[in-house]
């Protein structure tokens, strides 16, 4: 079935089974491998993408559910000026270690800061609560999001 959606600000049409996971469409059909597969069951957030500006787990999203919607992956976010601030803050504050969770962490950080430019620590932790990191213990990531919310000019 031909399914059209907007991906990273460009319209795309994929000819796939409507039950195919958005994650597999992105990685295997469109060859965008920035979106990672961790648990494959919605528990880790490594596969986070934005659908109409809201974080979705692409591993649980049948591609039909994004028909005619706007999907943003880490490859699309990377073209934004906000990405530079967020990525720099993650680098500066040690928010990325092995890096596997980082695309998902950056996606949810981007979505949070778009909606709420000055989040409290509690709001940051809530926004990141669906994303698992097995390296950092989270504090460094929370610090990175705080830093990014201050335009990277904090400390």
């Amino acid at each position, binding site marked *: *079935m031909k399914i059209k959606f907007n991906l990273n600000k460009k319209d795309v049409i994929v000819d796939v089974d409507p039950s195919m996971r958005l994650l597999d469409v992105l990685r295997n059909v469109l060859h965008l491998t920035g979106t990672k597969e961790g648990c494959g069951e919605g528990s880790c957030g490594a596969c986070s993408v934005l659908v109409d500006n809201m974080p979705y787990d692409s591993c*649980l999203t*049948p591609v039909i559910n994004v028909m005619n919607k706007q999907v943003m992956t880490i490859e699309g976010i990377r073209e934004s000026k906000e990405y530079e601030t967020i990525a720099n803050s993650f680098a500066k504050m040690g928010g990325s270690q092995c890096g596997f969770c980082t695309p998902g962490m950056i996606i*949810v950080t981007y979505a949070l800061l778009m909606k709420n430019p000055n989040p409290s620590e509690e709001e940051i932790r*809530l926004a990141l609560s669906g994303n698992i990191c097995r390296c950092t213990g989270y504090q460094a990531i929370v610090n990175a999001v705080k830093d990014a919310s201050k335009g990277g000019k904090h400390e």
Partner: protein
Amino acid sequence: MNSYIPTSLEEALKILFEHDCYILAGGTDLMVQNHRSSGLLPTFKKDVLFTSQIEGLDYIKVINNELHIGANTKYISMIESKFVPTMLKNVFVEIASPSIRNMATLTGNINNASPAADGTVPLILLDARLVLQSKDNKREISVDDYLIGFKKTDRKPNEMVTEIIVPLTDHKYLWRKVGSRKAESISKVTFLGAYKTSNNKISDFRIALGCVSIKPVRSKQVESKYIGLTIDELKNKKDEIVNDYNQLIEPVTDQRSNKEYKRKVAINLLKSFIDSIK
């Protein structure tokens, strides 16, 4: 398996009249339950009807002091809605994770009919009802009657839930979800107690407990014993109330916790609810 992607309710009901389907909204349960290895299509044992393209089932409105929630409404819309009461929001914000709350529907939570579902606990406490439609029929049923067993509902294959109706009330309440962590946790025990007072007397008293039976436990018969008492009289009957609920709940040991733990926690939450009444 065939995929059906109706764009109207009428079309969906026609498909369900002809085919026995899984009804998939957000997919956050069905895509996990039918998941295979990375890169492979999910394996559904039946045809699938996807609801995401159906127009007109995503709404929240209030009619005659009752909340009407369209079947395609996501948790995030309810959490952000000015019409949805705080009691429901407090339950919904603890379900799963932010991304799953962006994707998942309460209708799906009801139809998955898990004993550990969080969303059904307040619905049963509030006497919520469901509207089910088929090609030739429309009926209403209480959520309590709709859930008939472990992962079993009263839905006929040609029906779908089109709306959830929740009476709006101003009960005082205590909600507690006990899980192993704040986000992403499937509950070990959930507790929702609600009451109203008038002239220092208990004018309404309701308790619903999740994860301690095949479906949320509520007994109007037990509740009615305590309505009409003064607050002090109710508190003096704490042991009797504990005894009543100890007999109603039947927790089982599973991968999340054992039955002794669940019973202990459920009863402790019940006691602290009684203590909190004022």
